């Protein structure tokens, strides 16, 4: 055992233990660590946004370099604050309309490409998918899964005849998907715990290398 002599490591370890203490019950040490985290996060975000965004992208070009074109984004940005003054509150619609229009134009074609065209292509039984027996089998399973889940979410016709077993098959595929997601979530949470224990046992106490 070779405990760290770095006071920052000790501070970090104590804050970790304060947060872990919530597992027993809510207490003042946990609340202290939680409030400290929220405060530091907010302060950090404000500082980094100012230095990385506001200063180089607006204030320096406008006020130091005298580029008057930047008055337009400044005014647009200020319109967001109009919400606090009821008389001119409608001005907030200007930047929101701009963002919605620009954002939709930029995002919709890309989403269509990423999530619909390429995903539909990936579901088709093309010759390349059957280069080996296992990839061919998985391609067929994916196709059956996609079709049965789509039928499960098709509500315009009563589930009778072939639709009923197909929709039930869709439920099985959905449950397998949820199970995989849950398994990965457990894996993720255990990983976070491992990370903290690696810090406590390694960096702090020096038990592991």
């Amino acid at each position, binding site marked *: 055992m070779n405990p760290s002599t770095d006071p920052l490591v000790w501070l970090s370890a104590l804050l970790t233990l304060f947060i872990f203490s919530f*597992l027993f019950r809510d207490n003042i040490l946990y609340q202290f660590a939680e409030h400290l985290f929220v405060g530091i996060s907010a302060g*950090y975000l404000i500082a980094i946004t100012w230095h*990385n965004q506001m200063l180089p992208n607006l204030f320096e070009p406008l006020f130091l370099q005298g580029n008057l074109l930047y008055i337009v984004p400044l005014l647009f940005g200020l319109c967001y604050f109009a919400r606090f003054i009821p008389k001119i509150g409608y001005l907030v619609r200007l930047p929101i309309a701009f963002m919605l229009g620009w954002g939709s134009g930029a*995002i919709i074609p890309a989403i269509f490409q*990423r999530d619909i065209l390429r995903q539909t292509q990936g579901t088709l039984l093309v010759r390349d998918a059957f280069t080996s027996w296992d990839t061919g089998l998985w391609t067929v399973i994916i196709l059956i899964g996609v079709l049965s889940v789509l039928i499960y979410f098709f509500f315009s016709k009563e589930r009778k005849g072939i639709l009923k077993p197909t929709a039930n098959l869709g439920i099985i595929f959905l449950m397998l998907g949820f199970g995989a997601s849950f398994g990965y979530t457990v*894996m993720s949470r*255990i990983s976070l715990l491992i990370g903290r224990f*690696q810090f406590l046992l390694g960096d702090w106490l020096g038990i*592991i290398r």
Partner: protein
Amino acid sequence: MDFFSKLTKIPRQVIYVVIALAVMIPLIIPIGLPIRVMPKAERLYAAIDSLGARSKPVLISCDFDPQSMPELYPMLIAILRHCMARDVKIVVMALWPQGPGLAEMALTQVPTEYDKEYGKDYAFLGYKFGVTAILLGMGDNIKGVFPVDYYGTPLDSLDITKKMRNYKDLSMIVTLSAGDPGWRAWLLYAQARYHAPVGIGVTAVSAADVYPYVETGQVIGLLAGMKGASEYEILVHEGKYSEGKRTAVQGMDAQSLGHLIIMVFIIIGNIGYFATRRKK
């Protein structure tokens, strides 16, 4: 209360202690359980392994925060080691405000292991807010979005970024992503719109969401959670690119034992549930 009823009412503190021990003990006394490298990780490794000193730079985006460090930071270290051992040039950036601190920490460690020079072998662009504008802008002109690097040096004066214009001047993009903005945005703008090759490292929570994109070939390769990080560490180690510390590999025994304990608790809970239900 009979035995089966007790099984459904195990105090949560007991479960916490058992899981803590299951995670802690293998960290102190490693078991050395085998780790199988999955094809998705192999594909990302092979893509980077095919690059060399004459290749265009690899862009690594650190889209994560300290909370997801145990899963994504080992990936960052392993990929940096792989690239630097192969003399592949690297440009690092972040879409998360907490990303630059973590990226800088890695960039103070790994380049010294391989004697790499800032500006010539690697560059650090830092963080920018506004993912859509950033990623679309980079497709047009990277220096328009990042006129200066993280330290305020103009990109025109760095060897590595001097001639860089847009995604076409990159070999590939690797996003290490803990959520949004992250892999979805990179696929949406850099891959779907500009056809840039994208590799992804994600926290295990997001892994199931990325799978469909790997199957269609929209993603070069995938590293999923700490397991993915350990797979990449193994590949880099087996490729004789690094003898450095492998934190994800170190954690995998604890990961497996943790999963085992959770499975045992799920089975115990279900036995108790079905046994008590039958009595009712």
